[in-house]
């Protein structure tokens, strides 16, 4: 079964079409990268899929549940790490994770076990007592992902997870994302070509709200001609402009 299936998913803001009749599917356990330049409609797509914004037209089904008709059920199977680091800055790392445990209704004992397990898995043990607002960008992003994982999501949305991070922090996060592949369905938005190529099973290239192509990095390179994925991306996006 597809973990995600969109059917003519559309979002317009007054006369601007942010997402235009989007049709794609993501298999269970697959990592799909939504790639595109600024304003391509990646974040709006994530917002619709995570029930933050209602589509103007069309629908999407997450594990068979409609985002339009069954938002509560969709919310129970997803985890979202938004573009900006979404943490409570005056709370410690532990308290941030505790907050999310409470939101997902964990009992006290389960809560502690869950935090211990996640902080160990994401390497947050050493910063558990630190105030989240005092952490570096890389640690904050790591915490943000940990918070998205608290509810044991079946589908995880990572919106620009490595934006603004240095090379080492980015490499660490890549390792973390790779470690989740196969177990959780992941949709990741990025405008870093190398990130999409390195992490994804398939890449969906978006421009002006439309889906231009959805395939593996290799297939995209073959279809567009050049060896380098970045060149292939530029050729595909420019090809539409001409």
């Amino acid at each position, binding site marked *: 079964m597809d973990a995600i299936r969109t059917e003519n998913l559309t979002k317009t803001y007054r006369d601007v079409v942010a997402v235009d009749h989007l049709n794609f599917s993501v298999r269970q356990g697959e990592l799909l990268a939504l790639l595109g330049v600024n304003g391509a409609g990646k974040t709006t797509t994530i917002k619709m899929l995570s029930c933050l914004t209602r589509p103007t037209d069309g629908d999407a089904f997450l594990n068979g549940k409609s985002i339009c008709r069954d938002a509560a059920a969709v*919310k129970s199977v997803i985890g979202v*790490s*938004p573009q900006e680091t*979404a943490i409570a800055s005056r709370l410690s790392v532990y308290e941030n994770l*505790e907050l999310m445990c*409470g*939101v997902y*209704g964990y009992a006290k004992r389960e809560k502690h076990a869950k935090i211990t397990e996640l902080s160990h898995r994401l390497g947050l043990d050493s910063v558990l007592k630190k105030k989240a607002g005092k952490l570096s960008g890389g640690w904050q992003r790591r915490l943000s992902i940990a918070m998205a994982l608290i509810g044991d999501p079946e589908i995880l949305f990572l919106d620009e997870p490595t934006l603004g991070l240095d090379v080492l922090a980015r490499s660490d996060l890549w390792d973390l994302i790779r470690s989740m592949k196969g177990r959780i369905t992941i949709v990741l938005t990025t405008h870093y070509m190398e990130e999409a190529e390195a992490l994804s099973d398939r890449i969906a290239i978006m421009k002006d709200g439309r889906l231009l192509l959805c395939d593996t990095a290799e297939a995209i390179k073959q279809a567009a001609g050049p060896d380098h994925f970045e060149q292939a991306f530029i050729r595909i996006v420019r090809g539409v402009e001409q």
Partner: protein
Amino acid sequence: MRILTFARRNAKEILRDPLNLAFGLGFPIILLLLLSLIQSNIPVPLFEIAHLTPGITVFGLSFMTLFSATIIAKDRSGSLLRRLYTTPMTSGDFILGYTLPILPIAVAQCVICYIVALPLGLEWTVGIGYAVLLILPVSVLYVALGLLCGSVLSDKQVGGICGALLTNLSAWLSGIWFDLDLVGDTFRRIAYALPFVHAVEMERAALAGDLNGIFPHLWWVLGYSVGALAVAVLLFLRQMKKQ
């Protein structure tokens, strides 16, 4: 469970800000001490401790508006709320989670003001208990105003509107600092059409143990509290939908 978790987070965010503690608890106490000192040198009936303390406890609540508006506006400008909107939390969880933690802080502020007022000459009577109890509906009003402002204003605007405008309005139109009759009939009428002076007079009556005297002021306060809360909930839901 979710409400309590979110309320606990909000309480921590508020209480861990040293500026909040300084303004919320420190400022009313400083005012109480300062005006009592003036009173000891130049006696004015308005600043007699039994008259002044209820007013200060009501005035101090304007900082609760600032607290609640600031935390909501900040959460809206960041992406924590957006994250929480993708979880099973409901609109009721958010509204109660923002409202509930400020009520005990408001009561604590009121209790501290009365504790400070005792060595300044306030008599220990059952009226203090009534006054603390009746501060609850007044607190609901001020917290609702915070929820309302936080739902429509940015975190920078909140500072100006709640921090400056509301605290001043609440001070001028409540009869704490000057007798409203001195300003004129129109000003008096405007003041009595708003809840602030009613809140102060209700608290003064409660402290004096005059339970009949709390009416009709209690109805004014309750009316405004319910009205402000209803508008605040609508505006909060509207911004939630917008997000």
